[in-house]
């Protein structure tokens, strides 16, 4: 069947009322967490993982994808009205968007970002639908050595390439890799580093680590830095509709932003933020109103907003076709697939085609819902910003704890006569680790990515070596592997070059705000 047929079937599945409800819950939650600074889609999906453990897999994944897309929409609202990016991909939006709001043009700024997000989301989701089958065909040719090379590329791009310090990134990655070693080894059936604790035989639950790192760690961080500055929300004055002039200046920027954002998201390197920076730079070059840049140029909002939504769809290409997460949210969505016993990758398209296409189609549906949710209801979302932080984070803490207990609450730990939930103890321990990492400026995403991809990389490496009977050169025999290693080398060298040239601030900003 061709892509149109599959996508059509997916749409039929996505339009079933229960899937529509899941998508609606997802986009609503996503917009809300996108609006709230500090709380992003990664944290939200992580919190929901244990809760959805017993729900329908397709519905849960549709909800997660809705949260991801919704977060991209919601983030721009905070950037424009509060000058605080709701999530990292909206940093650039704040540059021009907040200036526009201060000049009383908050309405058109919100409108161009919402419509731009819609246009980009639509084009990029269709792009995902048409590109994915080709990537899948290509990926079926991957042998263990090629997969190992792909993992190495992912490790480098996630940890070392972007961020203010390659050393910190690698440290975080190796914490994750170390945790990934725990549990029964697939190739020999022997337990490693389990210390006779049955709960550790199957390794550390990615869900537990993710919830701890993102939710507990962030909560502790907020608690320890209380008394922050009171942000001023700028009220939206006048019409929210764009003028003819605004439309004329926006549509080109939307399309260029999409063209920049999608491939950057789809490459196994970097997240949405990079695309937004490129888009902003491009618009600044091409504009006929260079004097407005820095003072509230609408192109500077339209382009980056389109780019960040397009790259969100782009991220799903390697996630679904190769099982390779390139952002923190994608890593947690991968954990979501795994909790239902589904392994993203070429086999997913063969064995669970209906689920994959329903998911892709539901992204189109979610996109329509989001533009409706975001334009007329903008006042409602802004009110979310008045929720006191202690309530918000108190709620997150309760939710994280209950979710973990619900998913795996067996009172399996014993100290003398006292029984306790081992999983909950791990949650708290990793939460403290997450706080310490944040406190000392270490990125969080490489830890989670290390735990997820580390065991996969190890299995592929050992399979490759077993098949070649211990010949290490077999790792470099395939042209695919060689190209991937070359990309990995480039991913180390290019940021190094920029850092030496003194342009490292872009990368350090990316690292400090990752989510």
């Amino acid at each position: 069947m061709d892509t149109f047929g599959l996508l059509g079937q997916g749409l039929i599945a996505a339009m079933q009322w229960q899937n529509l409800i899941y998508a609606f819950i997802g986009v609503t939650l996503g917009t809300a967490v996108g609006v709230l600074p500090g709380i992003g889609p990664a944290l939200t999906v992580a919190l929901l993982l244990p809760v959805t453990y017993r729900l329908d897999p397709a519905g849960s994944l549709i909800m997660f994808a809705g949260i991801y897309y919704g977060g991209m929409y919601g983030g721009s609202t905070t950037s424009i009205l509060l000058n605080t990016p709701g999530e990292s991909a909206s940093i650039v939006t704040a540059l021009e968007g907040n200036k526009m709001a201060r000049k009383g043009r908050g309405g058109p700024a919100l409108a161009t970002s919402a419509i731009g997000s819609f246009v980009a989301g639509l084009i990029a989701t269709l792009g995902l639908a048409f590109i994915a089958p080709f990537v899948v065909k290509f990926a079926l040719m991957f042998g263990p050595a090629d997969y190992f090379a792909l993992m190495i590329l992912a490790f480098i791009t996630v940890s070392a390439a972007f961020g203010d310090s390659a050393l910190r990134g690698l440290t975080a990655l190796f914490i994750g890799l170390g945790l990934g070693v725990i549990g029964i080894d697939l190739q020999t059936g022997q337990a490693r580093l389990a210390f006779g604790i049955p709960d550790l035989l199957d390794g550390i639950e990615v869900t537990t680590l993710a919830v701890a790192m993102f939710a507990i760690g962030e909560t502790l961080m907020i608690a320890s830095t209380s008394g922050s500055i009171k942000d001023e929300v700028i009220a939206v004055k006048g019409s929210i509709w764009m003028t003819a002039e605004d439309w004329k200046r926006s549509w080109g920027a939307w399309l260029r932003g999409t063209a920049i954002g999608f491939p950057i998201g789809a490459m196994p390197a970097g997240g949405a933020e990079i695309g937004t920076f490129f888009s902003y730079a491009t618009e600044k070059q091409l504009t006929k109103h260079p004097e407005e840049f820095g003072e509230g140029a609408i192109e500077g909002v339209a382009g980056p907003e389109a780019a960040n939504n397009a790259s969100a769809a782009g991220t799903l290409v390697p996630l679904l076709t190769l099982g390779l997460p390139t952002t923190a949210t994608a890593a947690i969505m991968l954990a979501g697939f795994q909790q239902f016993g589904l392994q993203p990758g070429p086999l997913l398209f063969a064995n669970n085609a209906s689920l994959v296409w329903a998911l892709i189609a539901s992204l189109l549906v979610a996109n329509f819902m989001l533009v409706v949710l975001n334009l007329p209801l903008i006042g409602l979302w802004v009110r979310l910003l008045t929720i006191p932080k202690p309530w918000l984070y108190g709620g997150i803490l309760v939710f994280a704890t209950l979710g973990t207990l619900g998913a795996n609450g067996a009172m399996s730990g014993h100290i003398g006569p006292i029984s306790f939930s081992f999983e909950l103890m791990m949650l708290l321990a990793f939460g403290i680790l997450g706080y310490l990492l944040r406190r000392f400026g270490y990125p969080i995403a490489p830890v989670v990515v290390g735990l997820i991809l580390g065991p996969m990389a190890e299995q592929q490496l050992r399979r490759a070596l077993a098949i070649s009977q211990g010949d290490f050169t077999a790792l470099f025999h395939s042209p695919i592997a060689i190209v991937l290693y070359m990309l990995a080398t480039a991913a180390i060298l290019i940021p190094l070059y920029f850092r030496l040239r003194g342009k490292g601030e872009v990368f350090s900003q990316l690292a400090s705000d990752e989510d």
Partner: protein
Amino acid sequence: MNKLLLAALVSGAMAVPAFAADYTIMAPASPGGGWDQTARTMQEAMQAEGISGNVQVTNVPGAGGTIGLAQFVNQYTGNPNALIVGGYVMVGAVLTNASPVSLANVTPIARLTGESDVIVVPANSELQSLDDLVAMLKADPGSVSWAGGSAGGVDHIAAGLIAKAVGVDPTAVNYIAYSGGGEALAAVLGGQVTVGISGAGEFAAQIEAGDLRALAVTGDEPFNGIPTLQDGGVDVVVQNWRMVAAAPGLTDEQKAAINADIEKLVASATWTEALATKGWVNTYLAGDAFDAQLTKDIAATEAILKDIGLVQ
């Protein structure tokens, strides 16, 4: 409050005499796998046939079923309404994990279903027959890479037994473990490994489509025209099987009641139909015959796992 209590008492009193037992079946694996499907098929059939009014299935995944097994023993000792599904993989996992709880700690009731493994090569492989495979194995055991399920499972055991039967050192078997038949299938189709070995159902579609060539099945009867290992001159019979066990510490009467219920289940039309749709073979065996078979299987498994080098 009183009314509520009364209502609860009445409904409780009404529910009790209707059926013999409300069973809880533990599937010591994630939803979707073989054990989970077995437990859920039992649930459907027992409810449909009126053997039990209300059957609950709980999933406790992990470590080849040994996590669930340990939890089952802790939680349900002496409880005549608790059942656990298990199988050959659990026998191997108890040994490789050195699990403190084994099948000796529960009350085995019956073997329910069986499935033969099949040995396949990609259609373009130079290996045409089982003889070719045996010759290659004898010439250089390491050059034959076997893709199958997790280490110490039935696929691995079958590969080890074949090597041993043809006079090759089982520790030299180059076994590549995948997390399931689907992943192993991709490796075989991609030509990354020499042969694939897994449940006959896993490869059936590709064998029929001509993408894979089946060399032999490991059971004692040919399957879909594929000859057995014994037909090809390799004296090995090994089959994956699934069983049901009850909690430890039961009286003989309680044990007999469960046995009777399972016998009714296996004889039922619902069960027979479900097995046919899933492609499982009914290998029902209960009582002393099953106990004897189980003891034999455990001993044989321990021996071959020692030969392969997974158990010291």
